[in-house]
């Protein structure tokens, strides 16, 4: 490789050169056809290779222009990864998926932010349409917006409300205690009583008093809390609000951004302030001012609790008795390694944000916050027959991979895949969440047979899951009951073939890596699972219904 070509290629990629040298290179490009051809060839292939490895484009503007906001308007999915994708053009659904996932800090330009908010609004509208198309008509009071997913010492003015109750448009008063309310859009609202609330629609509430903590997933940005003092708009992802009647509204942004606005008394103006991460403010409506304050002043607003998982003391022994080939309790980590419970179980390595902390029941489990756990080297996988058993408590976010079984270390060629998903548009289930079990032989990046178990209200609840396949017969069990099955046809097997196992994400993005604040370099993970996982066991045989039921019944109240 001659020096000019090396320098030209380096300069093209941003390498620093003096202006004079760049002029020389341009001159040679203009006058030397062989050089021009060699350089043009390299740059062309470089561009293609970068495009091939890049994420799909986020053409939100095009989607808006064309009105392509309903990815479920046609059925089919050429790659089989994406239920509800528009046939022959999976990019669109991925565009929307990316928009849903895109964290606020990366929404750079104002028009992109606007597009995201517009899309979020459209998605909410679509969710509503999906609700209607699915035959679930909203009631006269305005329809179900979500439900009560957890409560602790909660006393409601309406005594009939309990965990699982549907939340509808209208007032709701929590006299004391606390409760979490999950919206179908994925927003989670944690309320500490006494609190006076009014649910106006799926992205807006009014609060006259109380302490709130709001977690807004990507794609649902723009959730609004109206207060007597002013308006708080979430721009993603987690904030706390305290409304003291007759005093002020105080706001703290824990992650992401929020906008505070209030009307200035005596004039038509509205004062606004955008708060970034770890910033707080007090809205004083009477004076028309937004006063900055340290976030610590609002630390009393509790963190949103994940429900606890309590298993009978002999659960581990029950699992071991069933003879798993691999078994991780996911209750501890040493360094970056998660050890297994049987001799042949390989160590799982931590890739990114996975914590091992106690839940409200005192049980330790793996809390996936964007990271994954994966084996460090290929293992021999059972093959024709296998079962996967685990406990999951998912956050109401977009699709997230629970378990990937693949033939390559970057998880591009799956033969088995389990994910928690809310991407079921087109199936008539609107924004409902579901567990998906994919079986694919031969392994690859598309095709295969899916079992989908769609139901609303999967998120923020612990469920016992078993997925299993026996020579092409697929079954899914939830909490001890079979809830889905499919025939994938005869399975060519693959017993003894090298297998890579990953928990917590679909695959690694081939576009590259990300550098963490501590200097470590991690792969970019696609469709990370957000939530908790416990007691992951893999068997070389299908489990019997009795075994599954017995394991599921080990959960204590």
């Amino acid at each position, binding site marked *: 490789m001659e020096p000019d070509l090396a320098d030209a290629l380096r300069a093209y*990629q*941003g390498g620093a050169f003096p202006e004079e040298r760049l002029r020389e290179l341009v001159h040679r490009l203009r006058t030397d056809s062989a050089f021009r051809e060699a350089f043009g060839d390299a740059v062309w292939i470089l561009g*293609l*290779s970068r495009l091939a490895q890049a994420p799909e484009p986020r*053409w939100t503007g095009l989607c808006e222009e064309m009105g392509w906001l309903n990815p479920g308007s046609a059925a089919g999915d050429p790659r089989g990864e994406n239920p509800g994708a528009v046939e022959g053009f999976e990019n*669109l659904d991925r565009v929307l998926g990316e928009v849903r996932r895109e964290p606020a800090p990366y929404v750079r330009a104002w028009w992109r932010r606007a597009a995201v908010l517009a899309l979020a609004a459209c998605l909410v509208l679509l969710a509503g349409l999906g609700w209607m198309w699915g035959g679930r008509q909203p009631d006269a009071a305005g329809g179900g917006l979500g439900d009560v997913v957890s409560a602790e010492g909660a006393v409601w003015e309406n005594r009939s409300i309990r965990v699982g109750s549907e939340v509808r448009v209208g007032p709701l008063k929590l006299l004391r205690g606390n409760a979490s309310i999950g919206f179908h859009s994925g927003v989670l609202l944690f309320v500490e009583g006494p609190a006076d609330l009014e649910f106006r629609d799926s992205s807006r509430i009014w609060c006259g008093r109380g302490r709130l903590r709001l977690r807004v997933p990507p794609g649902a940005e723009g959730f609004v809390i109206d207060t007597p003092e002013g308006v708080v708009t979430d721009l993603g992802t987690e904030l706390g609000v305290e409304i003291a009647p007759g005093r002020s509204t105080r706001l703290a942004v824990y992650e992401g951004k929020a906008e505070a606005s209030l009307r200035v008394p005596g004039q038509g103006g509205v004062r606004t302030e955008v708060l970034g991460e770890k910033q707080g403010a007090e809205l004083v409506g009477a004076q028309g001012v937004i006063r900055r304050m340290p976030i610590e002043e609002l630390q009393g607003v509790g963190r949103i609790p994940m429900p606890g998982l309590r298993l009978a003391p002999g659960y581990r022994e029950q699992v071991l008795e069933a003879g798993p080939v691999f078994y991780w309790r996911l209750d501890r980590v040493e360094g970056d390694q998660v050890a297994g419970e049987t001799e042949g179980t390989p160590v799982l390595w931590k890739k990114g944000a996975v914590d091992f902390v106690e839940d409200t029941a005192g049980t330790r489990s793996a809390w996936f916050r964007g990271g994954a756990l994966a084996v460090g080297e290929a293992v021999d996988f059972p093959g024709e027959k296998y079962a996967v058993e685990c406990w999951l408590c998912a956050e109401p976010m977009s699709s997230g991979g629970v378990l990937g079984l693949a033939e390559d270390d970057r998880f591009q060629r799956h033969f088995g895949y389990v994910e928690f998903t809310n991407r079921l548009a087109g199936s008539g289930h609107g924004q409902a969440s579901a567990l998906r079990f994919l079986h694919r032989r031969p392994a690859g990046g598309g095709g295969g047979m899916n079992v989908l178990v769609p139901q609303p209200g999967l998120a923020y609840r612990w469920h016992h899951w078993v997925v299993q396949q026996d020579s092409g017969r697929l079954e899914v069990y939830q909490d001890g009951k079979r809830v889905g099955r499919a025939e994938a046809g005869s399975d060519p097997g693959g017993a003894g073939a090298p297998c890579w196992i990953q928990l917590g994400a679909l695959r690694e993005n081939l576009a*590259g890596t990300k550098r963490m604040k501590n200097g470590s370099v991690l792969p970019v993970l696609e469709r990370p699972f957000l939530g908790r996982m416990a007691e992951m066991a893999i068997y070389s045989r299908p489990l019997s219904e009795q075994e599954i039921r017995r394991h599921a019944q080990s959960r204590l109240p």
Partner: protein
Amino acid sequence: MRVEEDVQQMVERVLKGDGDAFLGLVHRYAPGVRAYLASHLYQLDAVDDLAQETLIAAYRSLDRFRQGEDFGGWLRGIARNKLRKHFEQVQKHSGLMERFRAECAGVLGDAWEERAEEVHGEALQRMLGCIGRLPDRMRRVVRANLDGSRGESLAEELGTTAGAVYQLQYRALKMLRDCMKEAHGT
């Protein structure tokens, strides 16, 4: 011939108000437009922004597309105009490197346009397969974004010099080119 007939039918459907028919056109031609733009622009954000602007402009002026015309060529014509405006901005406001890239694009643009005709969605899939078949070190260099000083830091990680990293990249690009030709032929 068959492809052009399909394109004409899709255009007619769009003009009659069937917006979804435009999906088919986007699916078929967007990869070529992106590849064409990616050869001129280094920043992929800018590539996708201009590709999107190109497609929106095409949709809005679809009634000006003449029957029998090469739709891909027509789209690249719109993209070329977008690029020209982009580079005018670059010349006014950007630094040395951007001006260098703009000069390169000016010299090489015609050659790249011919190649863009051959790029469809499968080409990017093929490219991924070719990258996967590269030797380890080359694959690592290709997967890394050698933007700015990244070449130097990757050289440190690989225990070599920045010059050697760019040499490796050049060799990898040649292998990818050959692999793409081979894959195209089969």
